[in-house]
């Protein structure tokens, strides 16, 4: 269907900018680099009908249909990360060794319903 989902484009499920600064969480004295990174997060609605851009699972498509029929009984599907990428962190451990560690799933690249 060419019908656009209800709601404005900005209210739809998509990645939003979130910069995490390690000094904000008090980790600056042991994390060497990066000092922070663009982690992002997912926010927005997953309304009926779910378009391809909203990366909906089959389950989410059915849930939006059921939700449109009875919003009180069934909530809209959640907006969640569907593609994440890794980052590397350079830090000092408790024995003053320098550690470079690769962490999966640290940056939200794409969101979906």
């Amino acid at each position: 269907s060419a019908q656009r989902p209800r709601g404005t484009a900005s209210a739809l499920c998509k990645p939003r900018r979130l910069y995490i600064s390690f000094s904000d969480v008090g980790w600056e004295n042991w994390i060497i680099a990066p000092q922070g990174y663009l982690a992002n997060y997912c926010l927005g609605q997953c309304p009926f009908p779910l378009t391809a851009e909203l990366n909906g699972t089959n389950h989410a498509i059915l849930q939006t249909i059921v939700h449109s029929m009875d919003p009180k009984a069934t909530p809209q599907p959640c907006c969640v990360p569907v593609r994440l990428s890794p980052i590397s962190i350079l830090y000092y451990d408790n024995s003053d060794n320098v550690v470079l560690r690769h962490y999966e799933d640290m940056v939200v690249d794409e969101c979906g319903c």
Partner: protein
Amino acid sequence: LSLQESLLLKSLGLSAKPSPKAPIPVPSVLWRIFEQRRTLPAADRAAEDGCSLEEFNVPGNIIRVFADRGHFLHEGQPQGLLCLQKLLYFNLSVLEEDELLTMAQLEVRFSHSSYQPSGQGQLFELRLYQSSPLALQGPSPQGQGRKLLLEQSFAQLHKSLLFNLSTVAKDWRAFGRSLGLVLEISVSSSEAPAGRGLQSPCGSISSFLDTSLLVVSLSPQQCKASRSKR
């Protein structure tokens, strides 16, 4: 907040928030790898296999550089041909139990190289011994309880020498011990001290700086995503 923080630290593979006391400078090899990864385009970063290290061609997602916590047994004036004797001690117990050690590389660094235009750099002999745990506690791990691991002649033309100690480190870790070694550098027996004129026979070895151990390990906890993709 502290519960949230401890959960987050745990998911990052840390049992508690580190509080470094005497941090060492960040080794250039770690900066280089970090920068290479940081500048990768997002698409390449997402496609990267997080469970292997191309730089060393081994499985792994953690690289640690251990500072040497040993002490000198002999330095300064040469004793015969011996210029330097040092106990090297690396505490491998910081590796988590489920981490798989895949590589260990010892670096012996000098503060400067002594390149000689004639190509006739002074020749030295380096010996590395594995020290027994008992010898590590005593004042001098000389003689008994040590096993020769490697022996190499070198002319000090480079700022550092690298040695693969993967097998030794794996063995020691399997027994739950820290890695104790004895490093000896002596003047090559073919270099007669008398023939070097008034120069000290140990010469440029006085520029010995330090040693460190680079260890690569694989934490299966952070490899789940890649495994399921495969």
